């Protein structure tokens, strides 16, 4: 069987919601895929009118075309792989339950929100609320891994509960805001108010950062756990493997003391 390839025929005029795709592939027959109704602006249009479909192996899906206005790609995916060749819209991999999503370009806001398992790899940049929370929910990302080579927008990992977000570039303002647990590491610095309202969890930052007054300076330490972590990232290539094997100390700050205060920001080199 060859990979299932969906090619978007043209850039839609409004936002297209592709979130029904993965549940439909799990429960339905691939031959009925062309009839799957998709919401685009105020209308419902069958998938077959928007995409040309080839191949039949739903465990390896390829999306082609200009997907920058397509939201909800890979939402609720359970297994297999999904490869996207260009840029994508918002809500990539919402509520991901397993499998791997690869995006060659940039992704919009809310990628990986409420994900529970699986991996999202992004070559380009990501928008706000990466691995964060669906509006109004109690918990954000609850497991799995997100790896971004480029920069990330604001509120990364908002109310994150478990899992890891690794960022090659800079993470925007309010990184790890209201975080409950989990790990966020950024190799290109952080914006303002990192860890705002975080209760527990770990933010690891290399490069420039401006710390709020609600984080307490706990001094420099050599922590075995960070060395183990750095070593485990070697297989992800540069820059993620760069800190491995140096045994250099990390500078630890605890906060946010405006919340529970059991979170930490570790500055590393």
């Amino acid at each position, binding site marked *: 069987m060859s990979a299932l390839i969906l090619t978007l025929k043209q850039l839609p005029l409004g936002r297209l919601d592709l979130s029904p795709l993965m549940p439909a592939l799990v429960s339905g027959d691939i031959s009925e895929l062309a009839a799957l109704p998709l919401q685009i602006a*105020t209308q*419902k249009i069958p998938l077959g009118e928007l995409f040309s479909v080839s191949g039949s192996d739903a465990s390896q899906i390829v999306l082609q075309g200009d997907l920058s206005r397509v939201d909800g790609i890979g939402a609720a995916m359970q297994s297999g792989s999904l490869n996207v060749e260009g840029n994508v819209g918002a809500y990539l991999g919402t509520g991901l339950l397993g499998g791997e999503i690869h995006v060659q370009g940039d992704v919009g806001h809310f990628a990986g929100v409420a994900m529970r398992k699986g991996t999202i790899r992004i070559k380009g940049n990501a928008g706000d609320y990466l691995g964060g929370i*669906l*509006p*109004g*929910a*109690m918990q954000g990302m609850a497991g799995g891994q997100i790896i971004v080579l480029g920069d990330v927008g604001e509120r990364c990992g908002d109310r994150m509960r478990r899992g890891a977000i690794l960022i090659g570039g800079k993470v925007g303002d309010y990184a790890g805001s209201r975080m409950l647990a989990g790990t966020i590491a950024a190799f290109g610095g952080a914006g303002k108010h990192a860890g705002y309202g975080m209760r527990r969890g770990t933010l690891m930052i290399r490069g420039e950062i401006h710390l709020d007054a609600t984080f307490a300076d706990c001094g420099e330490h050599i922590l075995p756990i960070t060395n183990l972590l750095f070593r485990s990232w070697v297989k992800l290539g540069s820059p993620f493997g760069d800190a491995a094997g140096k045994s250099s100390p990390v500078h630890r700050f605890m906060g946010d003391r405006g919340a529970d205060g059991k979170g930490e920001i570790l500055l590393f080199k």
Partner: protein
Amino acid sequence: MLTLLKGGKIVDPTRKLSSVSGDLFMRDGWIVEGPNPGERIDEEIDITGRIVMAGAIDMHTHIGGGKVNIARNMLPEDHRFDPVHRAGLCRSGCGHAAPSTLTTGYRYAAMGYTAGFEPAMLPVNARQAHLEMGDTPIIDKGAYVMLGSDDFLLRLMREGASQERINDYVGFTIASSQALGLKVVNPGGISDFKFNRRALDLDEAHSHYNVTARQIVYTLARALHELKVPHPLHIHASNLGVPGNFQTTLDTITGAEGFPIHLTHIQFHSYGTEGDRKFSSEAAKIAEAINNNPHVSADVGQIMFGQTVTCSGDSMTQHRNAGFGSPKKSVIMDIECDAGCGVVPFKYKDKNFVNALQWAVGLEIFLRVEDPWRIFLTTDHPNGAPFTSYPHLIRLLMDKTFRNDALSRINPDAAAMSTLDSIDREYTLDEIAIMTRSAPAKILGLKDCGHLGPGARADVVVYKEDSDPEKMFTAPEYVFKNGTMVAKNGDIVAVTWGDVHVVKPQFDRSIEKPLGEYFDRHLTQKLGNFKISDDEIRDITNGGGLRVHACERDGRTV
């Protein structure tokens, strides 16, 4: 425009018609005897063999007012799994437990409901409640305004004001808020909560005003009777959900001293303290009390398993239950001098002992109350379950085998404590029609609703008979509202706007003098702005009308 529905089997308990084959004529929104001499029939629909009933009426459903909006805002995770996209004539919205106004109207209509009544409108929130109801398409609506924990009434009672003076205040409140009835919630308790009280029994004195819940119930029940408001006092009794509260409920019945009363969501008020877990069903005692007291009616507030949201004016109870919320969040609000409210999302689980027993208690009450004219089919939407579960509930009542199957799947300890399996009763179609149409119209004083006689509004539902009542009641073949076909096989085919039902009791306007001073001194608006005019109601109903029902009533029942 004259429409003939030809050859249906008419089920109309108000006129004692039980599946009687006949023709039904509708002219310009009303049901008529037949064509005038020489009049042409414009449209004829063959419904041979179909069951025809009046539009169903939900006499207790939270569809408007502050707390419903809070529930809507609080539950994005619930809406997310039931998105309502714009489709056909219907606009987008959100669904499930606390649907948007538009979705509420569409879903009720598609299910054969043509009226729904908001049971807990706070006077100070009345305008907001009417705006939301005005935005609810197709169905008729109305509201019971809430008193009993409001500062002005409690002051009057503390000062020993005469019943006449209190009647004036009650009449003023009903008329100014454009209500159809009056509700009391945890009498005095919502107010005493603000004085740090966490429970208030029927005969305990309020810690500030020194009046008891029993006095409040009696005073308000009597006020409505003397104002000749058709719907008796709608009572959400004290101690909701507390094990052993059945005694409070029985005492509330005697506390009304023979004045007619309606006990709402009685299921939540029928618990005992027997058994290892000190939680048991006293449904039999409550049902017996209803059977023996013809001046008492009740709606059940059945729970169904699954996610929903509880929203109540009873901030004292909701504060107590906030820790059980799922997802774990809640809003408890103080609302000026009127009362309060509490919203707690809740998930009823069939394997949970308490929830399973609550489910059984509700069904026991349905089946043990003998007179279907005095027991009403409700889930206290959305407190026990969303109203979309009604067809399932109807099947539980009409099909003993189905009911016992469901019983065998709930928590076994709860099933063992319930007497449900020993009840053989199955509701008939006539009885379902009584409790969902004829009886609500009667108890609310809606003379032109709930039946299919000439002079009634042409709110008509045509069902394809089915051995599975759930299927039959989920998507009727045709639904007519004011003579317009609005739904067909569960799809909305026309969006109309229903009327607002109100009463206008007579009272002495001199009450407005002390009230005006009170408003100036204590409230956030002026008395003149508080009053909602008829024109304002007509403005906000999107073209629906204002229907004023007469305040007349026979003598004291007991």
